[in-house]
């Protein structure tokens, strides 16, 4: 019953959306008009190259290519797109920044621009233009986008990381949904393991899923790596409480999570081995696409992260900013493309094609039908609004980026959960690393 309703909704939603989407000649006409009125006029003979993270959803990339083609036709600026897995964009961008040659634009992971803020183009005019036109930026995007008073990147979208869970198994364990408090969630994990339907969070070096859950755990218990002035405050009773909670939770997880990378939980969930985990919407999308996994798509849902003793959401979602390098010969063309990407006529169909994988950072896009077509996607709409930034209380600069890239918090939790170190030892290691990063 619910199945039919949802399918009908999906179909209805797509139809409505399709009607409003510009395609073919109409898109080109619109793009041409846009190019004439846009504040940024590409330089004569400009051509751009962009390195972006490799898509998770093929349809998203197709829509993106279409968008870029329209841009090229309207402005006469050819754009060469290359793709790397999202973890590899960072080293490439760093090397490009270091050597002063490489793609003009990089579209990478959340803190990327802050690794070399002085090599990023000032794009304040672009973000002002977009912010005014589309209902303003969400709070976390402002923090990610700005270095000092200027914007050094354009926040394009978030990739939400939410709790994924199986409905039937949860019901059997006495839960109709994921509890909204951390204590309740621990009870949930216990009940699930008791029923032999356990779940798990990645404790290996998983940039997305691993960092996602340990930061939630740390922050929800009031722990923080640094305070507002970037002073290291990891050594606190709150951190110890977070570690104790994580260890209790770890005991209820399926064995092997210490070796999990970002792909492991997807595999295990789709194989029915685990019944709860944290992930983007990719498990759901993959299950929908695969006829043999339809039952999993029907029997799963997504949930916000439970709130801890601090009493408010403490989630960490991945942000994807696009930045222009200062060494580019065509800064106006770069800015034009950045602005073009986020214009409603481009952005709406593009984010819709991502099927919930990506969440907008501009408030006006809350209305996109992608969020209402399928209620199971709804939690992901809030990802950008609920997300804290990489540094927690502290600055979102390169120090926070380094701490995350070096898995300081993740290793602290892994050290304690796997019994390698006691509470004091694991905190001391993290404390020492953080003090060096934040000196």
């Amino acid at each position, binding site marked *: 019953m619910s199945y039919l309703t949802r399918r009908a909704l999906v179909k209805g939603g797509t139809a409505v959306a399709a009607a409003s989407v510009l395609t073919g000649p109409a898109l080109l006409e619109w793009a041409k008009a846009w190019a004439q009125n846009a504040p940024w006029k590409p330089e004569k003979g400009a051509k751009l190259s962009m390195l972006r993270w490799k898509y998770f959803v093929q349809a998203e990339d197709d829509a993106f290519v279409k968008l870029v083609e329209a841009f090229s036709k309207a402005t006469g600026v050819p754009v060469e797109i290359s793709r790397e897995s999202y973890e590899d964009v960072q080293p490439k961008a*760093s090397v490009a920044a270091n050597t002063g040659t490489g793609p003009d634009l990089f579209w990478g992971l959340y803190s990327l621009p802050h690794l070399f803020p*002085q090599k990023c183009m000032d794009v304040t005019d672009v973000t002002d233009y977009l912010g005014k036109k589309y209902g303003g930026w969400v709070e976390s995007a402002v923090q990610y986008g700005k270095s000092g008073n200027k914007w050094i990147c354009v926040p394009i979208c978030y990739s939400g990381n939410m709790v994924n869970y199986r409905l039937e198994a949860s019901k059997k364990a006495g839960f109709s949904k994921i509890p909204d408090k951390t204590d309740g969630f621990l009870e949930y994990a216990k009940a699930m393991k008791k029923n032999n339907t356990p779940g798990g969070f990645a404790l*290996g070096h998983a940039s997305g899923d691993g960092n996602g859950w340990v930061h939630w755990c740390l922050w929800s218990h009031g722990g923080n790596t640094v305070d507002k002035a970037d002073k290291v405050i990891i050594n606190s009773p709150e951190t110890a409480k977070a570690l104790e909670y994580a260890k209790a939770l770890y005991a209820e997880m399926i064995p092997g999570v210490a*070796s999990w990378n970002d792909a492991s939980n997807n595999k295990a969930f789709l194989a029915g081995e685990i019944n709860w985990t944290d992930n983007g919407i990719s498990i759901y999308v993959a299950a929908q696409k695969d006829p043999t996994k339809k039952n999993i798509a029907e029997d799963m849902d997504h949930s916000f992260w439970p709130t801890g003793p601090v009493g408010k959401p403490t989630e960490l979602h991945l942000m994807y900013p696009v930045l222009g390098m200062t060494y580019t010969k065509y800064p106006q063309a770069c800015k034009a493309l950045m602005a073009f990407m986020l214009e409603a006529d481009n952005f709406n169909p593009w984010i819709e094609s991502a099927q919930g994988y990506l969440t907008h950072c501009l408030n006006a896009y809350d209305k996109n039908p992608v969020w209402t077509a399928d209620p199971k996607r709804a939690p992901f709409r809030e990802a950008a609004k609920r997300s804290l930034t990489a540094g927690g209380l502290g600055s979102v600069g390169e120090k926070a980026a380094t701490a995350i890239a070096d898995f300081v918090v993740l290793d602290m939790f892994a050290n304690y959960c796997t019994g390698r170190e006691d509470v004091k030892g694991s905190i001391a290691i993290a404390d020492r690393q953080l003090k060096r990063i934040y000196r």
Partner: protein
Amino acid sequence: MAIALDSRPMRDVTAWNQLKTNRNWLAIWFMLPAAAFLILFLAYPLGLGVWLSFTDARLGRDGIFVGFENYEYLWEDSIFWLSVFNTLLYTSVASIIKFAVGLYLALLLNERLPFKAIIRAVVLIPFIVPTVLSAIAFWWLFDPQFSIISWSLKKMGLITANIDFLGDVWNARWSVIFANIWRGVPFVAITLLAGLQTVSPSLYEAATIDGATTWQRFRYITYPLLTPIIAVVMTFSVLFTFTDFQLIWVMTRGGPVNATHLMATFSYQRAIMSGYLGEGAAISTAMIPFLLGAILVSWFGLQRRKWQQGESND
């Protein structure tokens, strides 16, 4: 007058000629391309790496000279020492087993076997497969949920739960060592086989006539004559193993909780992933003494006649 006129141009020519035709200079001209190549692609990067380790360079930004600051930090960094321990364990265990299995295989392949050529080719397969591919295959074999090893053992009723190959500290270490051995054995085996074939059969014939047992023939003929090859092969094997990167990076990324971080992967983690170029360079530089040690052992070993010509001929 005529003599004086003749002698002046002669002197000019001689000066240039010396550079052009003098045998010692000629050698230098011929070596120049090779030297330039080595300096540009080996000495310069090595020197730059060592220099970086004395700076606080970060990705995207030049550093300033900080002396031994990076090394001082690493000296008290428990993860660094863990990576040193892992590297030494990984190298020593894997090298010893690779040597033992490789030698055994070489001796076996040196016997008269049916389909000898095909078997020798097959032995090389692990070495031919790109490391990343074999690493991915092992990653699946050792998966905590989908391991075929766990699955088979469970079906046979030997275990009840999946083996946590890469999630448990020691399991993970043995697993990556096993993968490295699997990959490294063919190199040792085939090279030793080549060495075995240079041993003259007449020595074995003479020994057999003298009534030597199989073990004695191996101990007093094969082993001494094989020593120089063993020294070379094991030096290479130790160097390859010590600097291994791909296997670890694909299978564990240094996890769980840094239990399989080798110095090479740890250096990459710090230098490229986290952007601490100076510190990463310091970790790489710290590998040099170990590598030099391995090279020196075999270098001095090869100089000794005992190694070259057998036991008692020192």
